[in-house]
């Protein structure tokens, strides 16, 4: 019983699932909408959601879903018609930000209200996982047609554990328990309030003062003293976040693999973990984060050896290297890493010029290739590694995630892994990809870090899975 108040960094932007790409929205969608297929708590397996079960055809191109007996918050039945409508919207609607990812759906049929048949244009291993994406949340067709998109995006008809009782823009979203939710018995809270508190300090102070029950995005620096507070519980839940150093392969000496390897060796990742994450993170060694599907435990970890790095640079004819490093302004962690890396690379004889830029601007510059180094991170929102792999190694768009990395062999392997339906084979393919990426130093993996949340000690079952979903249906406020 009780209402859980959670402080977060920003207010949400919309409740139209297809119209946003922001985690801040997705994490609330997961409370408000249900999806056909869910990701489990471990973040590595799929489990039934509104689809009770599904069958895949032989050729892997036709999926038949059996819908569960469930109701929207307005009491109406959730039918296959609604599911079809939701998926069609994400594929076709002009406001959809995700349509590219769902073009694989060729058509859908609803032979009866409980059955949804989805025909793909070809086999696709990641398809099922993409149905678990919050963007593919199931919305009420009748409701949306009646209310109009804008009104629905403001006060949606919920298919998930909670319904939106009120939304005070810029301040808070007030959720109430959805009595019509098919798993309503599981939900213990009366409601949830997502409160936006942009300043990291005051957000934490507010929890410390007992004014809210939980706060997310706890800065690394505060973990230690929050842990010491007996009234609070710090939750460090495994995430799929990986911070990495982007390298622009198209820029001068950086096109040489040896130079990139030297840079990798010049970087003391443990020092970053210590200084920036206060020891909370973990040194990263693969682009597929630890705890994720197909993560390769034994991937190569180059030792920190500035001397060796120097030699390698000299060998490659790149001594006296000067690099431009783009820093995201306003991001403390980013700036800290930049300052550290500047010093570390300096020890290997590389001069680093820091260029602080507004984040929206850094993207433009990254895309335009006007940089040498820059730190970025990636948190997965689909369990399947295909999405990230395609973006990062698959030459799909944005020049391999702005790096201009170019290895045709890798590219082919990525495409093959996407359509490989055999689990075991697929795993080896991904392990190979991780090895190849490491060898080529497509980028430099820096560290993995957990989700960092804090709650009052009377809150139980507060948990965030690696994809970021909060399991508020299991949360208890004592």
């Amino acid at each position, binding site marked *: 019983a009780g209402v859980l108040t959670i402080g977060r960094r*920003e*207010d949400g*932007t*919309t409740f*139209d699932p297809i*119209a*946003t*790409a*922001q985690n801040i929205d997705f994490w609330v969608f997961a409370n408000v909408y249900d999806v056909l297929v869910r990701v489990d708590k471990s973040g590595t397996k799929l489990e039934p959601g509104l689809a009770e079960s599904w069958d895949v055809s032989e050729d892997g191109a036709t999926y038949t879903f059996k819908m569960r007996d469930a109701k929207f918050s307005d009491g109406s039945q959730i039918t296959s018609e609604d599911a079809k409508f939701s998926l069609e919207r994400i594929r076709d609607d*002009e*406001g959809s*930000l*995700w*349509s*590219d990812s769902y073009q694989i759906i060729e058509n859908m049929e609803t032979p009866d209200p409980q059955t949804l048949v989805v025909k793909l244009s070809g086999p696709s291993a990641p398809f099922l996982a993409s149905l678990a994406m919050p963007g593919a949340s199931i919305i009420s067709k009748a409701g949306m047609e009646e209310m109009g998109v*804008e009104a629905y*995006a*403001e006060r949606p008809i919920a298919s998930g554990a909670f319904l939106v009782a009120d939304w*005070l*823009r*810029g*301040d808070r979203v007030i959720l109430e328990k959805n009595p019509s939710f098919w798993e309503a018995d599981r939900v213990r809270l009366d409601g949830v309030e997502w*409160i*936006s*508190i*942009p*300043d990291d*300090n*005051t*957000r934490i*102070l*507010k929890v*410390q*003062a007992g*004014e809210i029950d939980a706060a997310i995005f706890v800065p690394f620096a505060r973990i230690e003293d929050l842990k010491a507070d007996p009234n609070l519980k710090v939750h460090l839940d495994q995430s799929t976040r990986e911070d990495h150093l982007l390298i622009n392969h198209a820029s001068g000496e950086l096109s040489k693999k040896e130079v990139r390897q030297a840079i990798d060796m010049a970087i003391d990742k443990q020092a970053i973990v210590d200084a920036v994450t206060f020891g909370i993170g973990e040194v990263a060694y693969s682009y597929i984060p630890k705890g994720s599907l197909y993560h390769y435990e034994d991937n190569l970890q180059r030792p920190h050896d500035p001397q060796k790095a120097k030699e390698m640079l000299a060998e490659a004819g790149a001594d006296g290297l000067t690099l431009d490093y783009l820093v995201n302004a*306003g991001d403390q962690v980013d700036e800290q890493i930049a300052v550290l890396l500047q010093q570390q690379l300096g020890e290997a004889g590389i001069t680093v010029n820091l260029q602080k830029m*507004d*984040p*929206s*601007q850094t*993207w*433009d510059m990254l*895309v335009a290739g006007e940089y040498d180094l820059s730190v*970025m991170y990636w948190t997965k929102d689909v369990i399947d590694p295909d*999405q990230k792999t395609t*973006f990062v190694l698959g030459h*799909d*768009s*944005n020049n391999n*995630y*702005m790096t201009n990395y170019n290895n045709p062999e890798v590219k082919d392997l990525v495409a093959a892994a996407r359509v490989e339906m055999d689990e075991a084979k697929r795993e080896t393919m991904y392990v190979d990809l991780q090895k190849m990426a490491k060898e080529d130093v497509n980028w430099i993996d820096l560290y993995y870090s957990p989700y960092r949340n804090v709650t009052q000690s009377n809150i139980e079952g507060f948990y965030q899975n690696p994809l970021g979903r909060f399991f508020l249906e299991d949360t208890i406020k004592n």
Partner: protein
Amino acid sequence: MSRYRFVLYRPFQLIPVLIGISIITFVLIRSIPGDPARVLLGPRTTESALARVREQFGLDEPLWLQYFYFVKNLFKGELGKSILYKVDVLKLIATRIEPTLVLVIGSVLLALLIATPMAAIAARRRGSWADHLIRIISTAGLGFPAFWLAIMLILLFSVQLGWFPVTGYGRTFWEKVHHMTLPCLTTGLALAAVLTRNLRASILAELQSDQATAARARGLPENVVFWRHVVPNSLVPTVNLLAVNIGWLISGSVVIETVFAIPGMGQLLIRGIFTRDYMVVQGVAMVFACATVLVNFLADILTVTIDPRVKL
């Protein structure tokens, strides 16, 4: 009354200012590098998705045409649709305007409440320890960065003493008062420092003015002279100073709203700037500019009311 006639025609004089403001906001925000479509979609996106978003919000049109639509919308009383929130900007502003208004008005009131007695004491006891103390405090008060002061006040009043909530806005009237006290105090203190110094100086000047001397020569006791002849006369420059500071106050709201998580327009604007939500930035800047102009207008009316000599 003829002295108030400017109330009728001043609004017309604003037209060129508003046109200037609309052009500047428009051009300025669009010359910020960065692409709203990319911000909206995040890094994991494709060119086709980007193109679609640009088209949807008319970002691919030539600049002059975009401006034309913006002005056309203005005449229809609309400010366009937010790229990030996908709702009408006017609607967004409507939900956000109250907290900012409360913050600004509250700060001004608190500042006046602090500054007036301080200035009066300092000026009447010129050279006393109280005067020196007030001068030192107000001089130092000018130098505190707002966000730092905010955190200090939170640590003292919220964390240590527990008198006020750390952040937030609240829903009922009293809740709002309770929540907004600290933020208003933060900006109010800085403003009070400015006002105290200014008011003290003008009271001092007015205390030695001819008309105050004449009032004493008429045998009026010092208290009467002070409150009836000195203070009203010294308020005029202060009112104008306040009006000039309104831009500064609104700027302050941008920072203070972030620290105190007040769901006002300042936060909306900041997020708008960082996410390149052109429509929001345009809209909020227009509203802020109009507010500044309005405040100056009110200050003019107040000045005319206080001082019968002033003609506008």
